[in-house]
C-alpha cells in the first residue's frame, strides 16, 4: 500500500451550484518519492492541494483518499497536520503580532501533543530553529517579526520551508512554491527542499513551470488537465512540456 492513495477523486466548490473541479483524479505516492504535478492554470492543481490539507471550501462528491491506509478525508485540518501532512502555501498568510518563533513553537507543540509526545524544551527548540534557519538564510530578526508580516515574496517562501523543516512532515505538498521567486531565492528554497528529501518522506510539487524542476528533480511528473491526471511519466516529461507547452492538452479538451 502506498503512503498516499487518491482514488477517483471528485470534488466541487462548496455550495448548491458549486462548480466541479476534480473529476476522477487518481494518484499513488510512496515514501521517498517526489511527484511533480504540472498543468495549465485552472486545471485544479491548487484545489487538489487544498483538499488534501482539508480546506473547508470544497465538497468531495466521490472517490477516496487514504494516508497510510487511514481515511484522510474524515480527519480535521489540524489532525491531518499532526499525521504529517504539510502544505507550503502559494500565498502564505500573515498573522500580525505573532512572532514567527512563537508560531513555530505553538505549531510544533500542538502537533506533538496530538501525537501524545512531550512538548519540546526551550533550549532544544532554540537549537533546532537556529540550525534550520541558518541554512535558509533566515535572520533572527525575521524570526521575531510577525508571521509573514512585511516579508518579501522570497522571505515568505523561505519561511514556509523553515516551517516544513521544523515540523518534519511525512507528506509535503508544495503549491507553486516557485511563484514570485527570483533565481537566487529559487535556489535557496530548492536547496532547503532537497535537504528534506528522505526515504520516508514523500513530496508533491505543484508547479506551472519546468524551471523549479531543474532544482528539485522529481521522480515522476504528472500532467493535470480539467480535474484529472491525463499523462504521467518520468522527469523528461517536464522538459517536453517546456518545449511544447500545454497546447496539446488544451486542444484535446476543445
Amino acid at each position, binding site marked *: 500500500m502506498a503512503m498516499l492513495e487518491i482514488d477517483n477523486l471528485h470534488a466541487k466548490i462548496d455550495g448548491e451550484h458549486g462548480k466541479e473541479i476534480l473529476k476522477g483524479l487518481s494518484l499513488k505516492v510512496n515514501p521517498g518519492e517526489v511527484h511533480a504535478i504540472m498543468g495549465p492554470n485552472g486545471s485544479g492543481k491548487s484545489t487538489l492541494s487544498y483538499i488534501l*490539507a*482539508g*480546506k*473547508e*471550501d470544497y465538497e468531495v462528491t466521490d472517490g477516496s483518499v487514504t494516508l497510510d491506509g487511514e481515511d484522510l478525508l474524515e480527519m*480535521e*485540518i*489540524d489532525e*491531518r*497536520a*499532526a499525521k504529517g501532512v*504539510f*502544505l507550503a*502555501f502559494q500565498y*502564505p*498568510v*500573515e*498573522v*500580525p*503580532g*505573532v512572532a514567527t518563533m*512563537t*508560531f513555530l*513553537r*505553538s*505549531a*510544533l*507543540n*500542538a*502537533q506533538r*501533543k*496530538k501525537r501524545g509526545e512531550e*512538548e519540546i524544551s526551550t533550549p532544544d527548540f532554540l537549537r533546532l530553529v537556529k540550525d534550520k534557519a541558518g541554512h535558509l538564510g533566515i535572520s533572527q530578526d525575521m524570526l521575531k517579526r*510577525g508571521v509573514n508580516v512585511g516579508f518579501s515574496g522570497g522571505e515568505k517562501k523561505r519561511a514556509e520551508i523553515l*516551517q516544513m523543516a521544523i*515540523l518534519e512532515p511525512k507528506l509535503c505538498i508544495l503549491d507553486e512554491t516557485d511563484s514570485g521567486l527570483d533565481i537566487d531565492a529559487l535556489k535557496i528554497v530548492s536547496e532547503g527542499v532537497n535537504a528534506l528529501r528522505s526515504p520516508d518522506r514523500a513530496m508533491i510539487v505543484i508547479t506551472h513551470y519546468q524551471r523549479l524542476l531543474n532544482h528539485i528533480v522529481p521522480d515522476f511528473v504528472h500532467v493535470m488537465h480539467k480535474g484529472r491526471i491525463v499523462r504521467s511519466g518520468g522527469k523528461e516529461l517536464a522538459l517536453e512540456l517546456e518545449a511544447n507547452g500545454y497546447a496539446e492538452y488544451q486542444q484535446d479538451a476543445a
Partner: protein
Amino acid sequence: MPAVQETVDQVRSIDVDQYKYGFFTEIESEKAPKGLSEDTVRFISAKKEEPEWMLEWRLEAFRRWQTMREPDWARVSYPPIAYQELYYYSAPKRKEGPKSIDDIDPEILATYEKLGIPLRERDALLGIESGGAKVAVDAVFDSVSVATTFKEELAKAGVIFMPISEAIREYPELVRKYLGSVVPVTDNFFATLNSAVFSDGSFVYVPKGVRCPMELSTYFRINERNTGQFERTLIIADEGAYVSYLEGCTAPMRDENQLHAAVVELVALADAEIKYSTVQNWYPGDKDGKGGIFNFVTKRGDCRGDRSKISWTQVETGSAITWKYPSCILRGDNSQGEFYSIAISNGRQQVDSGTKMIHLGKNTSSRIISKGIAAGHSDNTYRGLVSAHRKATGARNFTNCDSLLIGDKCGAHTVPYIESKNSSAQFEHEATTSKISDDQLFYCRQRGLDPEEATALIVNGFVKDVLQQLPMEFAVEAQKLIAVSLEGSVG
C-alpha cells in the same frame, strides 16, 4: 507559546459556563435600608464614622444628583435602572472592624483564595520565593475594604495605602484637599451618585521623591444580591514620586443586573508618574444576555505638575455593559498621558469605552492604543476625545484604534473626536477594522493548531502592543482571560 496552551487548557477545563468567578459566598451581611434618600447617605456616613464635612460633601452630591438625568449618548441599551430598588451599602457582618488579617471571616479569606488573591502576607511572601513580584493588596468586598496587606512595609517608605474610609478619618487634610479635585462632585450622573453613596475603595499617597517599593493592588468583589458597588479610589503621587497600581474585579453570576459605578481619581504632581492597570472581569451575563454587571465608571487622571505622567492600561473582558473612559488632563507643561486598552465583548455584551486626552499645558503629549475585539452578538465601540487648548502649544497625540471582528453577528464602532484650538498641535489618528479571516484560521490549523488554539494565537497577536504594557503577572492573567472570554466564538 506556553501561555496560549495554558489558556486553551483552561478554557477546556471550564464547563458549559465560561465564567469561573461566578460563585456566591454565604455570609451574613449588614445592609442599609433599600433605596436611596438623604437617610441612606447619612446611614453610610455614620457607618463609616465620618467627619461632618464628609457628610456635607455627600449630601451636596445627593441633592445635585436628584436634579440630573442619566446620560444616553453611549451606544448601549439597557432597561431602566430602578435606583430605589437597590441596596447602597452592604458589609460582611461583624461586631468590630478587622484589626488584623486573623480577624477576617474565614469565608471571605476563602473567597479571595478561590479568586487567586492571597491576602495573608505570609502566603504572599511565599509567592515571592517562587519568583513572583511582591504586590500589596487591598480587598474590597461589596461595600467595605476587608484587608490591606503589607501596610507596615509600605509605611516605612512613607507610602499610605489604606481603605479610603480609614483615610478620611486618619488623613482628613489630604483627602479633603484632593477628593473631587479631578472628578468634581457635579461631573456626571454616575460620578455624582458615587460621590453621594461611595462606601469604600483605596487611598494611596506616595510622598515626594518616593518610588513605591511594590505594586499596589485592589481587588473588588461584588457578592451581595441587588447591591450596587460604588467604590472610590484616590491616588496621589507627590513631586517626583512613582507608583504602579493594579485593579481587578469579579462578581457572582446572577440573573439580575448589578450596578457598579466607581470613581477613580489620580493626581500626579511635578515629575511624578502613575501607572494604573485594570483587569476587569465582572460577570458578563449569560449567552442570552441575562444578568451581568452594569459598569458605569468615571476614571480620570490629572497631570497637575510639569513633566508628570499618567498611564492607563485596561483589559476589559467582563460586564454586560461597559461605560468607561479613563482620561488624562494634561495640565502641567511637558506632561504625558497614555491609554492602552483591550476591550473584548462576546455574547450580548455591550462596550462603549475609550479615553479623553485634554491637552492644556505646553508640549504635552498623549498616546492612545485601543484594541477592540467583538465576537458573538456583541457591540464594541471606541469613543475618544483628543483636544488641545489654545495655550497648549506643541501638543502631540498619536491614536491607533484597531477593531477585530470574530463572526458576522457582532459590531465594532469607532467614534473619535478631535478638537484643536491652536495651530501648533499635531494629532495623528489611525484606525483599522479587520476580521479573523478563514484564511488565517486555515493557515494556523494546517500547521497543527485546533480552532481554539488558532483563535487564541491570532487574538493574542492582535493585542500584543497593549499586553506588553501590563505588569508581568497581569499580562499572563489577561492572556488567559482573553481566551476564556472568546470561548465558543469560533465555528
